[in-house]
C-alpha cells in the first residue's frame, strides 16, 4: 500500500476514536452502556460516509461497508424468517416438545401431519448445495413456481384486467347534459365540470391508444399506427410524470441520511 493510504487510514481511525469518545461522554439513554452506544453511533456515521463516498469513486471504505452489509443482511433475513415462520407457524404444528422449548402454544389439529410436506420439500431444496443430487431441488422449485402461477393467474385477471376495464367505462358527458349547455359553460376551473369531463376523455382515449401500442401481432400502420403513436405519447407523459414525481422521494431519502449525520451524530441541530 502507498504511504498516503496509511495516512488516510490513520486519520480515519483517529477521527473514529474522537467521535467514539465524545458520543460516549454525551450519551443519556438507558438502552445500552455509554461505551457501546458511542461506538455504535460512530460506526453508523462512519458507514454512512463510506457508502456516500462511492459517488466520488470506488474505495476501500466502500468495499468494507459493502461486504459488511452483505454478511449482516443475509443473516438478518434468515433469522427473521426462521423465528416468524419456522418457529411461529411450523413447530407448533409438528412438535409438542419444541413448541414448549420455544414458548409457543401447541396447535393440536387433525391435519397437522401434512405440515411435514413443506419440510420435506424444503430439505430437498437444501440438497441443491450438493451437486450430485441437486436436481431433486426442482421439486421444491416446482412447488414454488406452481403456487405463484396459481395465485397470480386469478389475482391479476381480476384486479389488473377486469377491474381496470370496468373502471374505464364512465360517461363522457355529464348526466342529463347532451352537450349544448356544456359548450356555453367552458371554464378551466380545476374542480369544474368541464375539466372533469376532459379528464374522462383523456383517460378513455389514453387507455385505448395505450392498449393499441401493446398489440404485438398486428403491424402498426394506418389508423392503428396513428393510435399507437398517440399511445406512446401517453406513455411518455406517464413516464415523465412518474420520474418527476419520484424525484421528491429520492431527495427525502438523502434528507433522512443527512439529518442523521447532522443531528444524531454531529449534534448540529436539535
Amino acid at each position: 500500500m502507498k504511504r498516503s493510504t496509511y495516512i488516510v487510514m490513520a486519520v480515519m481511525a483517529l477521527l473514529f476514536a474522537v467521535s467514539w469518545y465524545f458520543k460516549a461522554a454525551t450519551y443519556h439513554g438507558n438502552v445500552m452502556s455509554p461505551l457501546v452506544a458511542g461506538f455504535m453511533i460512530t460506526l453508523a456515521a462512519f458507514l454512512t460516509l463510506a457508502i456516500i463516498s462511492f459517488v466520488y469513486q470506488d474505495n476501500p471504505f466502500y468495499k468494507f461497508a459493502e461486504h459488511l452489509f452483505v454478511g449482516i443482511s443475509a443473516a438478518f433475513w434468515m433469522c427473521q424468517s426462521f423465528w416468524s415462520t419456522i418457529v411461529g407457524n411450523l413447530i407448533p404444528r409438528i412438535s409438542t416438545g419444541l413448541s414448549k422449548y420455544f414458548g409457543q402454544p401447541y396447535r393440536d389439529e387433525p391435519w397437522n401431519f401434512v405440515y411435514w410436506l413443506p419440510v420435506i420439500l424444503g430439505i430437498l431444496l437444501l440438497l441443491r448445495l450438493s451437486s450430485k443430487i441437486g436436481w431433486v431441488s426442482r421439486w421444491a422449485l416446482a412447488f414454488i413456481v406452481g403456487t405463484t402461477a396459481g395465485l397470480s393467474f386469478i389475482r391479476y385477471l381480476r384486479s389488473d384486467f377486469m377491474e381496470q376495464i370496468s373502471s374505464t367505462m364512465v360517461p363522457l358527458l355529464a348526466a342529463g347534459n347532451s352537450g349544448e349547455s356544456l359548450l356555453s359553460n367552458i371554464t378551466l376551473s380545476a374542480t369544474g365540470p368541464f375539466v372533469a369531463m376532459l379528464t374522462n376523455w383523456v383517460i378513455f382515449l389514453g387507455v385505448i391508444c395505450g392498449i393499441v401500442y401493446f398489440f404485438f401481432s398486428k403491424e402498426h400502420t394506418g389508423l392503428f399506427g396513428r393510435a399507437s403513436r398517440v399511445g406512446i405519447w401517453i406513455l411518455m407523459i406517464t413516464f415523465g410524470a412518474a420520474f418527476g414525481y419520484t424525484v421528491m422521494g429520492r431527495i427525502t431519502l438523502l434528507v433522512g441520511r443527512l439529518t442523521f449525520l447532522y443531528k444524531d451524530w454531529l449534534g448540529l441541530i436539535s
Partner: protein
Amino acid sequence: MTEALVVTGTNLGVVISLALIAGGVIWLLVRSLKGKEVERRVIFGFVLIAVSAPILFPITFHEQISPVVKAVFDKIESLPAGSTVAISFDFDPAMAPEVQPMANAFTRHCFAKGHKVVFLSIWATGQSLLTSTLDTVVRREFPEKRERIDWVNLGYKAGNQGVLNVIVSDLRKMYPTDVNAVPLDSIPMLAEVKAFRDLSLILAVGGGFPGPKEWVLYVGDPGNVPIAAGAAAVTAPQLYPYYPRQLIGILGGIKSAAEYESAMVDKYPQFDSVDKPGLRMMGPQTLAHMVIMMFIIIGNIVFFRSKRMRSQL
C-alpha cells in the same frame, strides 16, 4: 400554499446557500455555453448543498391537502369509534424517511379517533421499524392505550403475497399468536376479527414488493375490504388506476405526508407539538427540486447549442 419566505435570522443560512447555488449555476451555465459538459460529481456536489442547507437552517410551509390524501383522512374520520383498523409496515429503513411519517400519522389519527389498531409487517425489516413506532408514538404519546385491548402487534411473517392470501380469509392460520407468542384467541380486541376481510380499513404503508399493490390484489379485491395506501413517491403513480374503487386514497411521498400532518394539526391541535417530519422535509425538497430543474434547463441549453453548431458544420 406558501407562507412566504420571510428572511429571518435562521433563514440567513438558506439565503447564503441559495446565493451559493445561484452563483454556481451561473458559472455552470457560462461554462456549458462554452461547450463543456458538466461532470457528474459537480451535479452531486450541488445536490448535497441544496439538501444540506435547509436541514441546518429549517424552513417550513403549510400544505394544502390534495383530494387523494383527503380521501384517506376522511375515511378514518368517518369510521365509528372502536372500529378495527390494520396498519401494515411494509418497508425497510431505507424507505422509512419517506413512509414512516405516514405510518406514524395514521397511528396517531386512529388512536385519536378511538379506533383499535392491528400492527403487522410483511417485510422482515418492517418489524424492527414497527417496534420503533410502538416505542416512540404509541407507548410515549398514548400511554393509556393498552396492548392487546386497544392495539396488537402481530409482527412479521415470511411469504409475501402468500401471507396476504391466507390472512384475507383466515388470520389465525397464518398468525396463531402475536409477536410475543400470545395466542390470538386470548386477545380480546381480535375476538371478532377472524380474518382481514372483517376489518373496517387497512392502511398499507410501503412502496416495494409486497406493498400496497399486493394488498389490493390479494386482500382488498378478494375480501372486499377498503384499503388506503401510504406509498413511497416512486410507487404512487402506478397506484392511480386503482383509485378510487380499489384504493380509497393514496398518500404519495413526503409531500402527501406533510399534507396529512397539516390536516391533522388543523383537526386535532394537540398534535401541533409532536414532530412533523413530513413538513420538516419540505424545505430541502424545494431547494433540491429547483437545483434539478436548473440542471435540466442547462442540459437542454447545452444540447441545443451543440445541435446548432453541428448543423452549421
